[in-house]
C-alpha cells in the first residue's frame, strides 16, 4: 500500500464514534437564556438595582469557582457556565433592593462550601443557589425580608414603597387580600417580590423553552406544581373560594421559579424517572406545609433543600424494571423465593 498512508497514526475507540453537540456548557447556556425574560421584568418593575445585584452575584460566583479550583490545584471549570447559572439563580431569589455585596456572601457559601468542597459540578447534594439564599436568610433576615413596591404599584393607596406586603402574607394572614392583587397582575408580575420570581408569565416562557430544548423533563415541575395545586384546592383558606386560593398560591412566591429552575437542578434531583415524580410531589407537599404552618411566609426554597437531601435515597428506591422481565415474572420469582425460605425454615425445624 501507499507509504504515506501507512505513516498516519490511527485512533481507536469503543463506540460511539460520534457525540451530541449538546454538552454541559450548552445546557447551562440554555438555562441562562431561559431566565432572561424574568430578568427583563425585574428591570422593568424595579429599575437598575436588580441588574447590579445580578452582576455582582454572577461575577462573584464565577470568581469563587475559578479561585477555589485554582487554590486546590484543580482544572479550570468556569467554561461550563454552571457558576454563571448559580450566581444568576441566587440573585433572582434576592429582594430587588438588596445591597450589591449581599449576593457575594451567598455565592461564597454556595460555590465554595456547598459545591466545590463536595467535589464540584454533579457532586454537590444541595442546590448551591438555594443553599446560598438560605445562608443569607439566616444571616440577614431584615434585608432579605424587605420587598419594595414595583413600578406598577407606585402611588397606589396603602402600598409601602420600601417594604410592601407580598400576596403570600395576605393569603396566609388575617387581613383580606387587597384589590390590587389580582390573578392578572400576579401572572404578569406587577407585584412585590424577589427579583426573578414576580412574573409567572416570564418564568413560564423560560420553562417552556427548557422543556422544548429538553434541558429539563416535565416530571419535576409538573408533579411539584400539581401537588401544590391539589393540596391548596383541597384545604383552601385565605377567606376566598378554594379555586381562587389555589390560583393565588400557584402565582405567588417563588413557586414557579423553584419548580422550573431550582428543583430541576441536575446534581440535586433524582435521575430515575419515577423518582423524579416523587421528588416533585415531595417538594410541593413541603412547600404547602411551610406556607400553612411554617414560621416563614414562603417555603419553596426550604422544601427543595429538604428534598435535595432525599434525592439519592429516592433513586435507590426506584431501581428500574429490567427489560424483558414482565411484572408476572418478578412476582413469580418473589413467590418462589418466599416458598424456598419457608421450606428452609421448616427443614430447620
Amino acid at each position, binding site marked *: 500500500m501507499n507509504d504515506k498512508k501507512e505513516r498516519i497514526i490511527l485512533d481507536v475507540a469503543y*463506540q*460511539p*464514534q460520534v457525540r451530541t453537540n449538546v454538552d454541559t456548557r450548552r445546557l447551562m447556556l440554555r438555562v441562562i437564556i431561559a431566565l432572561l425574560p424574568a430578568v427583563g421584568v425585574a428591570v422593568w418593575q424595579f429599575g437598575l438595582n436588580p441588574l447590579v445585584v445580578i452582576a455582582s452575584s454572577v461575577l462573584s460566583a464565577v470568581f469563587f469557582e475559578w479561585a477555589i479550583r485554582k487554590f486546590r490545584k484543580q482544572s479550570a471549570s468556569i467554561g461550563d457556565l454552571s457558576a454563571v447559572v448559580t450566581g444568576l439563580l441566587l440573585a433572582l431569589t434576592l429582594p430587588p433592593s438588596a445591597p450589591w455585596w449581599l449576593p457575594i456572601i451567598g455565592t461564597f457559601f454556595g460555590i465554595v462550601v456547598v459545591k466545590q468542597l463536595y467535589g464540584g459540578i454533579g457532586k454537590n447534594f444541595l442546590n448551591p443557589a438555594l443553599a446560598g439564599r438560605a445562608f443569607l436568610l439566616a444571616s440577614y433576615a431584615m434585608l432579605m425580608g424587605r420587598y419594595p413596591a414595583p413600578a406598577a404599584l407606585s402611588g397606589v393607596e396603602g402600598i409601602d414603597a420600601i417594604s410592601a406586603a407580598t400576596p403570600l402574607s395576605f393569603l396566609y394572614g388575617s387581613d383580606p387580600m387587597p384589590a390590587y392583587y389580582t390573578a392578572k397582575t400576579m401572572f404578569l408580575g406587577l407585584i412585590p417580590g424577589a427579583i426573578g420570581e414576580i412574573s409567572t408569565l416570564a418564568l413560564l416562557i423560560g420553562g417552556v423553552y427548557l422543556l422544548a430544548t429538553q434541558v429539563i423533563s416535565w416530571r419535576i415541575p409538573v408533579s411539584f406544581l400539581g401537588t401544590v395545586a391539589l393540596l391548596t384546592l383541597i384545604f383552601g383558606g385565605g377567606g376566598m373560594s378554594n379555586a381562587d386560593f389555589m390560583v393565588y398560591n400557584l402565582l405567588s412566591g417563588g413557586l414557579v421559579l423553584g419548580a422550573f429552575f431550582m428543583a430541576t437542578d441536575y446534581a440535586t434531583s*433524582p435521575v430515575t424517572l419515577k423518582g423524579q415524580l416523587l421528588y416533585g410531589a415531595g417538594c410541593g407537599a413541603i412547600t404547602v406545609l411551610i406556607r400553612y404552618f411554617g414560621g416563614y411566609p414562603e417555603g419553596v426554597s426550604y422544601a427543595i433543600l429538604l428534598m435535595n437531601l432525599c434525592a439519592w435515597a429516592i433513586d435507590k428506591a426506584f*431501581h428500574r424494571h429490567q*427489560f424483558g422481565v414482565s411484572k408476572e415474572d418478578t412476582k413469580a420469582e418473589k413467590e418462589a423465593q418466599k416458598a424456598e425460605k419457608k421450606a428452609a425454615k421448616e427443614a430447620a425445624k
Partner: protein
Amino acid sequence: MTHTFHGGVHPDYRKRPDIPVTVIAPPPQVVIPMIQHIGAPCKPLVQKGDLVKMGQKIGENPAPVSAPVHASVSGKVVAVEPRPHPLGDTIMSVVIENDGLDTPEFMEPMTPEQMKNPDAILERIRQAGVVGMGGAMFPTAFKISGGIGKVDRLIINGAECEPYLNGDHLTMLNYPEQLLKGIELVRIASCVDKAYYGIEVNKQDAIDLLNSLHPEKYGIEIVPEKVKYPQGGEKMQVKAVTGREVKPGGLPSGVGANVVSTRTCYAVYQACYEGRPVIERIVTVSGSALKETVNGLTRVGTPFGYLAEQCGGFVKTPRKIVLGGPMMGICATSFDAPTIKGTSGVLFFTEEEDKHVDEPTCIRCGKCISVCPMKLEPVFMYMYYTKGDYEMLEKYHVMDCFECGSCSYNCPGRMPLTHAFKTAKLMFQAKAAKEKAKAEAAKEAKK
C-alpha cells in the same frame, strides 16, 4: 401509526440516499479473510499459485456455526497467510491477484420447485456463505434453522437507524422486487406464513414503492417505524413489531421472533435465483476526511486504502477508520484491512467528528437513563464501575447492555459510559469462561 420502543436518541443522520450507487472498480489484489462470520474460522481450500474464478469457494469449515467464503474476483492466489483483519488482529487470509476478467463460477440457480423446500433453501443459504449483513455476521442458515418451530414472527430489519449508512435504503429502492422475493425465501425457510418488514419512516419513498408491489403476495407486511436510534437493534425491532421483550440474556427466538436484515434477504435472493454467493455489497464510504459520500457497490476484500482512493482520496488526514455506522461501529487499525461481508460502511473521520474532552464530568443530569433502550441506569452503573463494585454492576444488569452507545452519545459531560460497560462485560465474560474451565478441569480430575 408508527411502531417504536422506549428510549433512544436522534443522532445527526447525515444520510445521502440521493447519491446513486457507483460501482467501485475491483482492486488489483483482494484480501479474503477466513473469518467473516461469528463461529468457527474457515480453512483455506486453495494454495498459493492456484487459479480461482469469481464466486469459487475458497474457504470453509464443516462446523454448524460457520459460513464459507468465496473469491470475489477471478485470478491467481498469490498468498495464503495472516493479514490485517478489519476487526483487529491478523487473520489467515487468501490474497488473490485480480486478472480483471471476472470469470464467474456461480452455483446453478434454484428451480421453482426447490424454492418451495425449506431444507433446499437453507442448504443454498449455507453454501452461499450468507451471514447477518447488518454487521453482526451471524451465519443466516444457522439462525433460521435454530428458530424453526419456535418462531411465529419473522421480522425483517429495514430500520437502518445508524447515521451515514444508505445501503439498505438503496437496496429497497433499486431492487424492490428482488428484495421481496428474497424475504419470501427467508420466510419459507423459516416455516412461517408471514414476515413483518420494519422500516423507519425516513425511508417513506421505499415504503411506498414496496407497498405498490403488493408485498402481501409474498406473505409480507410492511411495518412503518418511528425514526429513532437504535430502532434497528434486534431487541428493539422485536419490541416495536410484536410488543414482546426479549428475555435477559436470551435470543429473540425465545419470544418467538427472528430478525433478519434487509441486505441479508437480498443476498438470499442472489444465492437462490442467481446462484451468486456473497462477494459484494453496498458500502457507504463517508466522513470528513473525504470530499463527499459515496455509496459504492464494493467487492468483499477491498482494502480500505484502495477504497478511499477510489472514492476521490482524502482532503484531510483521517484520524479514525470506522466500520459500520458511527454509533456502534468499531475502529479499524490498518489501511490494508479489507471490507468483509458485514461491512455496511467505512467512515474516515477526522478531528471534526471527535468531540474529545480532557476531563469528562458527570453532571448527574440523568439523560443516559431516559435514552437507554434497555431501561438501564448508566449513571449508577458507571459509578459502580469506577468503584470496582462488580457485584452491584451485575445487580444493575450491566450484561443487558448491548452497547448501542445511546448513553455516551447523549452525555453532555462526555462520559465514556459505553466504553466502561463494554469493558465490564468483557471482564464478566472472561471470568465466566475461567470458571467454566475450572469446573471442567475439576470434573476431569474426578474421573
